[in-house]
């Protein structure tokens, strides 16, 4: 039997097993052994995925997908990564991750069996939908139409290690929220949305959030060094597509915390769960349908977009119908006081959702005008910056106050008193900086002071000093994540304020001066790489006569397919990155060089790592406390 048919059979088994499992959702509750039917799809999609990797590694050009996306000369690692570097393969990966979540969840020790089966069955329904989509519109095991001896895919820009691991991580984040939706549907079906439910959900929401955070960070890091524009976030639709579920997911897990502690906000939490996974699906739709004009190119096909839209509609109709019947009954009657931890988390929710609204509008408005008015437009980054500025200020303010408020009721004067010293300290530092170094504007002072205060307050909240011992509190995760966010805003603002950029046309031995840095253009080196010709320009960062750093920005000329790429040369220092890109215009005797000084770049990446670590330690501490 040939491998393609074998792959198709694996997919069919996965399809039918998940369909059978999802029958439990019917009013009659067709109950079969959930342990078997929730685990079969995992093993079969795993086999299918391994099989796909195998035909890529084997460079088996009997398959159209391999022909289009691989090449026998590709290094092994990129052959493997090529398996999910395309639409069909990435969808199979998406399904695999869906089944992994269902598989692990099927081992959870939840005693309420009806609830557990409902969750598993709805997750199986989602798996069924996506496998159907894969099988009929994007089958990875389609044979090539003619005999081919060599593949087409050797696009050098896509041969990048980070680009290979980025999609799986982002997908775990996106897909993690599918289980959250299944929790919402299962909870409504079994009338089980309460403290205990929130406790079960908590680690899953965090897991998805951790991976999504990391995925967005990696994507941004890739754009920074690979695109060569010196930026790390372009408010590009594809980036926004991953930011939207992140914002909703962040609001969601804060709500789950209140629900677990105070047993309130049931229906609101359910609504956020539906919203978050819907945004993950919309994100996939936007990226895969090809209706977006993006700096990141993807294989695209309108029928695929349509399928995702229909599937999204089905999921929304099911969840909202259920919500219409069950939602109002879920809530506990309760009053929330204006000054309390609950109210500050709610305020944070509204601010995150406002941010979401701004991003959503900016991303989808151009699509609307394109579809209905046949007018192409794009939205400039200033829209996002100006709209999000006041929201960020409020968000920082509430993040400083909120964690210091007690549950239920607190006095605002006491909270303000407890943080006033750190606030004054931060203000003094920023003012001092403004006076001695560079004069800052009011918005910059506000943002920098608030984010610095947030960092200091969060550090203080994470530690407790007792008899000269410093004790780490169980709320360390929260503190780390909040420190991370404060650091992110601080370094983003500082980066935007103090970044410098200059373009030079340089000949060998020229001296280029940017700010107080002196660069010497030493020489041009030509070498032959594995499958490209390389031209490197050597620059020295000089201090009078001594060489401090060497930069080797590079141009690579690939012949198959004919492509030219620029490789940036970045020297990372504690306080700033120095970023050099060059290219050579046709028929010219000079090179074009662009040099950026990017302050606090490393801090931006570090802040994302802090947020991720915050999520991880929140899960770890939770598991420990339970024991």
């Amino acid at each position, binding site marked *: 039997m040939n491998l393609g048919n074998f792959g198709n059979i694996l997919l069919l088994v996965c399809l039918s097993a998940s369909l059978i499992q999802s029958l439990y959702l019917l009013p009659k509750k067709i109950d079969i052994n959930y342990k078997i039917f929730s685990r079969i799809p995992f093993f079969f999609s795993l086999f299918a995925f391994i099989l796909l990797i195998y035909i890529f590694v084997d460079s088996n050009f009997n398959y159209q997908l391999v022909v289009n996306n691989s090449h026998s000369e590709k290094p092994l690692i990129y052959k493997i990564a090529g398996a999910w570097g395309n639409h069909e393969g990435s969808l199979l990966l998406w399904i695999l991750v869906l089944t992994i979540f269902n598989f692990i969840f099927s081992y959870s020790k939840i005693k309420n069996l009806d609830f557990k089966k409902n969750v598993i069955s709805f997750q199986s329904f989602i798996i069924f939908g996506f496998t159907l989509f894969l099988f009929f519109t994007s089958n990875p095991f389609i044979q090539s139409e003619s005999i081919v001896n060599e593949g087409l895919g050797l696009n050098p820009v896509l041969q990048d290690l980070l680009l290979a691991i980025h999609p799986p991580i982002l997908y775990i984040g996106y897909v993690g929220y599918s289980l959250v939706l299944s929790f919402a549907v299962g909870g409504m079906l079994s009338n089980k949305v309460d403290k205990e439910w929130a406790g079960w959900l908590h680690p899953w929401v965090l897991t998805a959030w951790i991976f999504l955070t990391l995925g967005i960070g990696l994507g941004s890091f890739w754009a920074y060094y690979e695109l060569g524009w010196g930026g790390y976030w372009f408010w590009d639709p594809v980036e926004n597509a991953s930011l939207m579920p992140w914002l909703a997911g962040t609001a969601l897990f804060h709500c789950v915390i209140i629900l677990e502690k105070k047993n309130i906000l049931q229906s609101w939490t359910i609504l956020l769960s539906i919203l978050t996974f819907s945004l993950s699906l919309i994100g996939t739709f936007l990226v895969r349908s090809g209706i977006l004009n993006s700096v990141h190119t993807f294989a695209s096909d309108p029928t695929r977009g349509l399928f995702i839209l229909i599937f999204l509609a089905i999921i929304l109709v099911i969840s909202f119908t259920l919500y219409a019947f069950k939602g109002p009954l879920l809530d506990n009657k309760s009053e929330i006081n204006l000054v309390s931890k609950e109210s500050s988390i709610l305020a944070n929710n509204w601010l995150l959702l406002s941010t979401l609204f701004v991003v959503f509008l900016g991303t989808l408005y151009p699509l609307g005008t394109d579809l209905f008015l046949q007018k192409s437009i794009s939205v400039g980054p*200033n829209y996002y910056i100006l709209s999000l500025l006041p929201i960020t200020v409020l968000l920082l303010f509430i993040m400083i106050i909120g964690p210091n408020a007690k549950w239920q009721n607190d006095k605002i004067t006491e909270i303000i008193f407890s943080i006033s010293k750190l606030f004054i300290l931060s203000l003094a530092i920023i003012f001092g900086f403004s006076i001695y170094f560079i004069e800052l504007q009011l918005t910059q002072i506000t943002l920098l002071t608030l984010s610095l205060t947030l960092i200091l307050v969060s550090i203080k909240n994470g530690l407790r000093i007792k008899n000269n011992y410093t004790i780490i509190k169980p709320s360390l995760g929260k503190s780390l994540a909040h420190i991370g966010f404060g650091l992110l805003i601080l370094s983003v603002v500082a980066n935007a304020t103090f970044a410098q950029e200059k373009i030079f046309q340089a000949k060998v031995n020229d001296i280029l001066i940017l700010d107080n840095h002196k660069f010497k253009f030493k020489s041009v080196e030509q070498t032959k790489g594995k499958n490209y010709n390389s031209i490197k320009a050597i620059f020295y960062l000089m201090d009078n006569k001594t060489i401090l750093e060497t930069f080797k920005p590079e141009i690579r000329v690939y012949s198959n397919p004919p492509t030219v790429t620029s490789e940036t040369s970045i020297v990372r220092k504690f306080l700033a990155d120095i970023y050099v890109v060059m290219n050579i215009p046709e028929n010219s005797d000079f090179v074009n060089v662009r040099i950026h000084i990017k302050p606090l770049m490393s801090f931006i990446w570090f802040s994302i790592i802090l947020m991720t670590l915050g999520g991880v330690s929140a899960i770890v501490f939770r598991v420990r406390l339970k024991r």
Partner: protein
Amino acid sequence: MSNKVKKRLIIILLSALVLIIATLLITMNLRDNIIYFYSPTELQLTNIDKKNIIRVGGLVKEDSYKYDDKTKIYSFIITDRSNEVDVSFVGIMPNLFAENKGVVVEGLAIDKASITAIKVLAKHDENYMPPEVIEALKKEGQWQEE
């Protein structure tokens, strides 16, 4: 009305007001920051505000790409095979820029047939054609499926 109901009503009205004002501000801000895209033919037919940043896209005309050593200005012509727009640009040309390939430039219009570019956008893939460029060519009946 009891005190409690009154208090609630005030809170609801206030939050509605805040919401409306915020939405208005955001949408107005959106309107100010929209960048319109034109094909060379559309540019001919529109009254352009010279203060607004626009995008123009099409194919780079053959033999039109030039560089002036003294002024350090790159110039080329964008065409949709019916109309043309002259582009001038100071900066680094992207690697994937080439004659007879698709390009999108962002900048300020000087008149209906010329623009000073601030950014020249050419994309990753050697076969990639910006969707707006395909649209622009289709409108002029100049698009051929490969």
